[in-house]
């Protein structure tokens, strides 16, 4: 143990004596480790952010939307084949889903569906009350939306069947609206009539409920919209009447707990396929939240692998650099090696000395790399995601072990060469 610490001390000394050389040697290791750690930090933050946000929306959700058909190859009568280009095809009202289709769907799979959430965006507007104003994004929603999008009511109640069926002017607003317009007093807000300006028109809505903006899916939307603007929910039919349009581009289904969402997504696609049999450009796509999360993490995984390969090459080059510098170092210190042997150092301790030196170089390089990686990754994560960085402890420990392994691997050959030096030759070396 004595000898080991002595070796570490010696290694640090020799690094200190050749600072520039040591730094250049470490550069490959630093770059390699830093890039792995940075991407892992970003990836970790991203995936914990995504899963956090997405799972708040419900893991049993299936998303159904209009989607562009994949290109088809057609063969003409003359035998020429060409690829049909539908990338320019525009979406017309005829291509969209209508309420009847969705009602049929709900009836067919009544035993599998616990809620269907449809959202009809009316547009951004603002609630105006005297001199007070607050921006809102007005959305018409069906009863199921509260379940599929996990909207948590803080006070009041949700719309009832009568209100949704008859285009009543009622609304549910966020606690932010209540904070600004009613001084945070929910009971004052509920029952109040507010004036909402959408484009140039004004509408009066009665507040029936307040939802918790922070807790629900609203948090995700807030990253996309700016400032104080939150969603204001109105009954679906009310929205359809305001915009004079009753078609559906996408909707969300909450499958029952015992239904496999992936299988149900396939069933959903099959259900809608006949409606679009004659539509060359558009079709209906359905995917589950689980498959969406999976897709995101597999994308992240692919990216991580790609960067890891590049980092691996940097580490390989770095390792060769370490080997090179160790060979230089043992040549420079040939007399020292001879002297140590004369003083009674066994070959094994000479070998240990230089392996420790290589490991120390790599370890310091690794630590600098980790520091840069965590720093850079956290910065990127906080800029891109506005979420706290989440460096993976496992990858940090892994990187430290890996850089030590590089030291041992690339240090062994030079160290062994030093250990096997002939003491007489070494002592005579000028």
């Amino acid at each position, binding site marked *: 143990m004595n*000898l080991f610490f002595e070796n570490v001390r010696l290694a640090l000394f020799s690094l200190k004596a050749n600072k520039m050389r040591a730094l250049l040697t470490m550069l490959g290791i630093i770059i390699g480790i830093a890039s792995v750690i940075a991407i892992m930090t970003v990836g970790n933050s991203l995936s914990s952010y995504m899963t956090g946000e997405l799972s708040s929306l419900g893991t049993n959700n299936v998303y159904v939307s209009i989607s562009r058909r994949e290109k088809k190859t057609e063969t003409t009568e003359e035998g020429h084949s060409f690829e049909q280009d539908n990338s320019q095809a525009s979406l017309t009202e005829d291509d969209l889903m209508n309420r009847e289709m969705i009602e049929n769907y709900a009836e067919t799979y009544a035993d599998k569906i616990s809620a269907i959430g449809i959202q009809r965006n009316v547009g951004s507007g603002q609630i105006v009350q005297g001199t007070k104003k607050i921006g809102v994004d007005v959305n018409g929603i069906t009863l199921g939306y509260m379940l599929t999008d996990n909207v948590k009511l803080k006070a009041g109640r949700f719309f009832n069947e009568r209100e949704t069926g008859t285009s009543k002017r009622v609304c549910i607003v966020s606690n932010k609206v209540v904070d600004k317009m009613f001084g945070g007093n929910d009971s004052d807000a509920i029952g109040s009539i507010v004036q909402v300006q959408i484009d140039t028109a004004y509408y009066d809505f009665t507040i029936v409920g307040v939802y918790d903006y922070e807790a629900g899916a609203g948090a995700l939307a807030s990253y996309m919209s700016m400032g104080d603007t939150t969603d204001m929910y109105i009954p679906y039919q009310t929205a359809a009447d305001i915009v004079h349009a009753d078609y559906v581009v996408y909707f969300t289904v909450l499958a029952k707990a015992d239904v496999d969402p992936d299988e149900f997504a396939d069933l959903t696609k099959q259900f809608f396929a006949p409606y679009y049999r004659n539509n060359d450009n558009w079709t209906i796509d359905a995917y589950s939240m689980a498959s969406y999360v999976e897709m995101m993490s597999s994308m992240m995984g692919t990216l991580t692998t790609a960067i890891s390969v590049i980092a691996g090459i940097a580490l390989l080059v770095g390792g060769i650099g370490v080997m090179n510098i160790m060979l230089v170092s043992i040549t420079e210190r040939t007399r020292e090696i001879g*002297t*140590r042997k004369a*003083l*009674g*150092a066994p*070959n094994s301790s000479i070998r240990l000395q230089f392996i420790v030196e290589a490991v120390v170089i790599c370890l310091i390089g690794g630590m600098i790399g980790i520091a840069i990686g965590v720093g850079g990754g956290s910065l990127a994560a906080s800029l891109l995601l506005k979420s706290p960085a989440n460096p993976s402890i496992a990858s940090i420990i892994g990187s430290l072990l890996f850089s030590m392994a590089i030291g041992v691997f690339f240090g062994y050959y030079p160290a062994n060469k030093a250990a096997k030096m002939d003491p007489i030759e070494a002592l005579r070396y000028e």
Partner: protein
Amino acid sequence: MEERKKIIDLQDIIKKFYIGTPNELTVLHGIDLEVYEGEFVAVVGASGSGKSTLMNIIGSLDRPTSGKYVLDGVDMIKAKDSELSGIRNQKIGFVFQTYNLIAKTNALKNVEMPMLYAGVHGKKRTERAKELLTLVGMEDRMKHLPEELSGGQKQRVAIARAMANDPAIILADEPTGALDSSTGRLVMDIFHKLHREQGKTIVLITHSPELAEETDRVITLKDGLVTSIRSGMGGRLE
């Protein structure tokens, strides 16, 4: 006459280089040499006489082609390669012409080095190293790096280092060769002190007849053979 213990017992040592090639070269032609405990012996000879080769063999850095060598009761011919480093560590203290202190390592750490390889523990090691540095008059410069010391000072540290594990012999190869005469004198005085006060067995390799004369016995090598063994002044003064 009282029975004296043989520390070095070399018999018919032959050393050949490039064996089996047209360049085969016999450097030592059959050396017989005995050194007794507490003796201060000088080996002199011109360059090419085989002094260095003999020293390498005595120092167990090299093996003879044939012959017998017993060092302090250990048969060095039978010793395995892996055992030689331990023997060097315990039984031999080297002093080189070029000092060979470990760079960027202070005097104290340099003296501790052989003890480190011997597995002597921290406090004991440092205490012993301080003791030895005091013995050679370097107690004020223990924390100095080799590059901060003069040639004579370096050599004194090297002598302290050679003494670290209380070896059976000190093997000094031209220890004053790189020093001016007055510093050389100082270094020689330290060897005499170690010899007189500690009863150290010292083998001094030198080409200076004056220094050789100060020792108990002078062994002259020529063309790989011992041509004369005679008592030096040191022996007579005793």
